[in-house]
């Protein structure tokens, strides 16, 4: 059930929630509510992405909170630090997790997570990272600076995957972390890095904006296709998280929801098909 509170006075949902909490306290019940026929308690959506060095946390927090608060009192909590985010996942908070599919695969091995939705951009749920370099010869990358919007861990992982014939090169690379894919790509053109790791779609975007810059970049390594970010939950929270998942699934259909998704580089979130779900479990 989704609660929409339009009034600017004190939201009735908050009063109901407060009353429910009080009753639960009296009853000595410290557990979540059953999903059916009940008003769900507010949940928090925790966000972290090692694939993009998100440096707009204040905007994300403000915009998603503004969207979620009148729809059930839910909150959005972005993280800049992987360890802190992972501690949240381990603590099994009352909430959901919006995270990269690459990170999901790692965490799903340690925690009983269930993917609910997958992001979509340009009509696709998949992306592919590549190395874009000044030189077409991968051997020229040795000991060079490579720019990426991902974390160093992410960069090293995709480098190993993309340069299987040159396993000696990734450890020698000097990784420069920048805020966005397009920064990484332009850093090569402007001499701050010798190569960049970025999504193919970002290079296509650069080509539309500045073909001359794009022409300086030679794609030399190709990663596997991976899913865009997923919205996931601890399995025993799956029922309780349905209302929030529904909200996110509907975001792409309303202008105000879409505006928020665009902040994450997405245009929609959809339920995963069986193939996608299987891919995440591999």
């Amino acid at each position, binding site marked *: 059930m989704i609660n929409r509170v339009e009034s600017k006075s004190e939201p009735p949902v908050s009063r109901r929630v407060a009353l429910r909490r009080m009753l639960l306290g009296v009853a000595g019940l410290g557990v979540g509510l059953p999903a059916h026929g009940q008003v769900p308690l507010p949940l928090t959506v925790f966000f972290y992405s090692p694939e993009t060095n998100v*440096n707009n946390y204040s905007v994300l927090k403000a915009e998603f909170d503004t969207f979620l608060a009148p729809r059930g009192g839910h909150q959005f909590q972005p993280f800049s630090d992987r360890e802190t985010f992972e501690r949240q996942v381990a603590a099994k908070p009352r909430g959901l997790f919006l995270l990269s599919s690459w990170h999901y695969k790692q965490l799903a091995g340690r925690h009983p997570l269930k993917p609910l939705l997958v992001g979509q951009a340009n009509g696709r749920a998949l992306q592919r990272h590549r190395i874009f370099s000044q030189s077409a010869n991968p051997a020229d990358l040795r000991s060079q600076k490579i720019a990426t919007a991902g974390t160093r861990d992410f960069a090293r992982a995709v480098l190993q995957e993309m340069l299987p014939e040159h396993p000696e090169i990734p450890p020698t690379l000097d990784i420069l972390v*920048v*805020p966005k894919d397009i920064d990484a790509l332009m850093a090569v053109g402007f001499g701050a890095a010798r190569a960049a790791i970025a999504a193919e779609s970002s290079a296509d975007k650069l080509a539309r904006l500045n073909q001359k810059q794009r022409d300086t970049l030679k794609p030399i390594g190709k990663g596997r296709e991976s899913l865009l970010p997923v919205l996931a939950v601890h399995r025993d929270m799956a029922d309780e998280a349905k209302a929030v998942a529904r909200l996110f699934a509907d975001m792409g259909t309303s202008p105000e929801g879409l505006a928020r998704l665009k902040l994450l580089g997405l245009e929609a979130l959809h339920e995963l098909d069986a193939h996608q779900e299987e891919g995440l479990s591999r």
Partner: protein
Amino acid sequence: MTPNPILGALLALVAAARFLWAILFATGLIGPALNGLATGADSPPAKILVVNSDGRVEKYKTAQKSFRDSFEHPVKELDLSGLSEQAAVRAIRSESPTAVYTIGVKAAAAAGRSVPGKPMVVSSVINWHRLPSAKDPNTHVIANELPSAAQLTMFRYFFPRIRRVGVLYSRDFNRQWMADAVAAGTDVGIEVIGVPVRTGRAARTEAARLLAKVDALWVTADPVVLNNEADVRTLFEEAASARKPAFTYTSAFAVFNPTLIVAPDIATIGRQAAGILKGLADGSSKEVQNPAGSEMTLNLRAVREYGLELNTEAMDSVNHVIR
């Protein structure tokens, strides 16, 4: 298996030599002899000093923290806030650093005087070309603004219908910059129209005339045009009166409500400085780098008021929103 006495003696000799080397390095007796910086992938430079012009300034703090996190080796840090120029020079000299990272103009100037010739990385300095140490082959620089081509690319990204952008500039300071910007504009389908001015007052007079011919005003880092706060404010007010968007390069101008700010990401600058200093240990030559990261501030109120067509795809790049 019987131990080989010759091999044993050799191993003992090697171990003793390594121990002696470690002692000499730890006491600093070897480090400075290695052309100022230690060599080898895992060896930190002997003594890195980070000099902050004013530790109370948020963007300076950000650069310093980012440098520290990225450098991965211990550094000595010095805050010059409250120190006179002479005291700052003495404070840096007394540290006898092997190499220095300076943040802000006060730190760069003081370090240039106190440890001339030492490897130095300079950031957060407007018009860094004017620093006496700028020509020193051991002074490495991270520029304070994104390249004009990067800014223009972002203008195009956010506002695909913007075709003509006007710039007021002084020939004395920015003749070459202007020529580069015009060329870069061609690459992204934006005509950059420059009007040279000699004084801030002239810039204010020319602004209205220029705004009549362009889709947007681009307020760039020009010491003549941006002579004082009143000049800066007037430029943005002229753009608002003409109902034209104003683009600019620094978040310091957010108070004037520009439509789009394309500023360098300060944390990335700190990481770049760390990268340059690490590279010096491997014998890298002089570097002048452009900032590699961007920080975008979008004024949605201005977008609405001026009826601009905004590419919503670009929203994934926005760091701050003015509503």
